[in-house]
C-alpha cells in the first residue's frame, strides 16, 4: 500500500500538477479565443529554458528564478498572439489551430537553436527524498510541485471569482458578443489570458524539466495529456482544468500499477495512451467535461 502511494500516487500527483498548470492556459485560451492552442506545450519549453538560462548566471534555486521563465514565456505568447493569431481572429478558428501548430514548430526550433537539442539538467546530482512517518517518501521537488499547484489553484479561484479582471475573463469566455455589448475591452482580456496562461505554462515547464531533464521536445510530449486535462475539466473552466490535470496524472501513473495480477495493468511504455483514451471517451460521451464546460 505504501509502495502504491510512494511510487504511483505521488508521482501521479506530480505529473498531474504539471498537466494541471499547463491545462489551465489551454482551457482559458480555448474558452476566450475558442481554439485549441497547439503551441502551449512548446510555450512551456520556452519558459523552462528561460529559467534554465537564469540558473546559469544566478546561483539560486530554479524555483526562485521562475519570474525569468515566466517573463520569457509571456513575451513569447504576446508576440505570437499579436503577429500570428490576431490577424486570423475573424476567420474560422481552425486556421488559428493550424497557425498554432506552426508556432509550436517555431518555438521548438528556436529552443533547439538557442539552447541545445540535447538533454540538460537544472541542478546536477541526486537529492535524497524526504521521509515522513518512516515509510512515506516524497522528493522535495514533488512536494514543491504539488504544494505550489494547490496554492496556485486557490489563488486562481479567488482571482476568477473576486477580481474585476477575473470576472471579465469569465464573462468573455461565456458570451464574447455580450461582453463587447457590455463595453468590456475584449483585447485586454485576451492579453491577460495570455499572460496568465504563459506564466503558468512556464511554471509547469520548470517542474517537468526538473523532474526529468530539459530538452526541446519536453512540452510537446506533454501536450496530449494537457488537452485531455482541459477537456476533462470542461473547456473554459480553469479550475476544472486543474482537477482534470491531477486526474489524468494519477490515471496515467496508477494505470501501470499491478492491479489485477503481478503484471502492470498497462505497460508503462503505453502510459501516454491513457490520456488519449480518457480524452476521446469524454469527447464522445460527455463533451462538456466533468464541470460543465463549453461545447464547440
Amino acid at each position, binding site marked *: 500500500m505504501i509502495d502504491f502511494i510512494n511510487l504511483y500516487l505521488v508521482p501521479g500527483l506530480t505529473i498531474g500538477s504539471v498537466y494541471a498548470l499547463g491545462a489551465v492556459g489551454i482551457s482559458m485560451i480555448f474558452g476566450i479565443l475558442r481554439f485549441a492552442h497547439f503551441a502551449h506545450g512548446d510555450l512551456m519549453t520556452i519558459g523552462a529554458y528561460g529559467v534554465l538560462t537564469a540558473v546559469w548566471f544566478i546561483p539560486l534555486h530554479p524555483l526562485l528564478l521562475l519570474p525569468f521563465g515566466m517573463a520569457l514565456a509571456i513575451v513569447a505568447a504576446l508576440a505570437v498572439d499579436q503577429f*500570428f493569431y490576431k490577424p486570423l481572429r475573424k476567420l474560422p478558428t481552425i486556421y488559428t489551430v493550424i497557425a498554432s501548430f*506552426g508556432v509550436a514548430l*517555431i518555438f521548438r526550433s528556436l529552443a533547439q537553436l538557442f539552447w541545445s537539442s540535447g538533454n540538460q539538467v537544472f541542478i546536477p546530482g541526486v537529492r535524497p527524498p524526504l521521509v515522513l512517518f518512516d515509510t512515506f517518501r516524497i522528493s522535495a521537488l514533488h512536494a514543491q510541485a504539488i504544494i505550489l499547484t494547490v496554492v496556485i489553484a486557490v489563488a486562481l479561484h479567488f482571482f476568477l471569482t473576486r477580481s474585476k479582471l477575473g470576472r471579465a475573463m469569465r464573462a468573455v469566455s461565456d458570451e464574447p458578443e455580450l461582453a463587447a455589448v457590455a463595453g468590456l475591452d475584449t483585447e485586454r482580456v485576451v492579453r491577460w489570458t495570455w499572460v496568465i496562461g504563459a506564466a503558468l505554462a512556464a511554471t509547469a515547464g520548470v517542474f517537468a524539466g526538473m523532474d526529468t531533464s530539459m530538452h526541446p521536445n519536453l512540452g510537446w510530449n506533454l501536450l*496530449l495529456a494537457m488537452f485531455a486535462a482541459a477537456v476533462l475539466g470542461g473547456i473554459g473552466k480553469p479550475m476544472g482544468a486543474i482537477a482534470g490535470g491531477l486526474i489524468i496524472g494519477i490515471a496515467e501513473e496508477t494505470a501501470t500499477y499491478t492491479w489485477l495480477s503481478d503484471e502492470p495493468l498497462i505497460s508503462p511504455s503505453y502510459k501516454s495512451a491513457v490520456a488519449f483514451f480518457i480524452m476521446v471517451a469524454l469527447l464522445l460521451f460527455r463533451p462538456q467535461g466533468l464541470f460543465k464546460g463549453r461545447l464547440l
Partner: protein
Amino acid sequence: MELTGLFFYLVSVLIAGGIYAVLCLALNVQWGMGGLFNAGIAGFFAVGAYASAIVTTAVSERHLGGFDLPIPFGLAAAMLVAGVTGWAVAKICVRLKSDYLAMASVGIAEILRLVIVNESWLTNGSLGISGVPRPFGDMVRGREADLLYLAMVWLCVLCVYILCQRLYVSPWGRTLRAIRDNEDSARAAGKDVDWFRLQTFVIGCAIMGLAGGLSAHYFKFLSPSATEPLLVTFLVWVMLMAGGSGNNRGAIIGALAIWLLWSATEIFTNRLPPEWITRSSYIRMLFVGLLLQFVLQRFRSGLIPEKSPEIRSD
C-alpha cells in the same frame, strides 16, 4: 561530373517531392474536400512504410515476416493496413468537431509511434527494418535505379491524382464538400455525414500509407527515428495550404514548390559558418514555421485556389 551530380541530386529531390505530393493529395482528400483536420499524418505514413517493408523483406527473426512478396503486394498492404488503421480511428474520432479531432489526431500519431517503438516482435523496435527491396533491384543498380524509381513514384502520383480528381467531381465529392461547407444543411438534406467522413478519412489514410510504402522502398531502411514525425506532418500541411487546399493540382504543385524550397534551403544553410551548420536544420524548421504564418495571412487560397466558391461556416 558536376552536372551529373546536380542532375541526380535533382532526381532525389523529385523522388521525395513525389512522395510528399502523394501525402499532400491524401491530406487534400481529408482536409481540402472533407474538412477533417489530421495532425497525425506521420503516423499513417509510418504504418504504410512498415506494412510494405514487412510484406516485401526476406524472412527475418527480428520482426514479423518478412513475407518476401513482390513490391506491388507491399504497396497494396501499405494502403490496406493504413486504411484499416484509419478506419479504426475514424470509427471512434470522426464524430468529433474540428478542434477536437485535431487534438485526438495528435494522440493517434503518438499511439502509433508507441506501437512501432515498443512492439519489437512486429517492427524490430528502435533498431528498425533494413534490407527493404527496391523495385527491379536485381536488374538495375545505383543511379539508374533512382531514375527508374523516380518514374515509379510519379506514376503513383499520377494514379492518385486521377483517383482524387474523380472523387472530387463525383457526386460523392460534391456531397463531401457540401458537408464541409455546411454540415447542418447537409445533414438536413438527409446525408449520412458521419459515414461520408469515415470514408474520407479512410481513403486519405490509405493514400498516406501508400506514400509510406514508397518511402520505405526508396530509403530501403526504416526505423522510428528515421523521420521527425512532427516535421513530416507539418511540411505536408504547409504544402497543402501553399498549394491551395481543395484543389488536387494545387496539392501537387504545393508539395513540389515547398519541397524544392526546403531542399534549396539545405544548399543555403550548408554554406553557413561551421558552428552554425549543426543547427542548420533548426533554422530551416523555423523558416517553414514562419512560411506557414505568411501563407495563412497573405496567401490563404494558395497557388491554385479551389474553383468552386468556398463558403465555410465552421
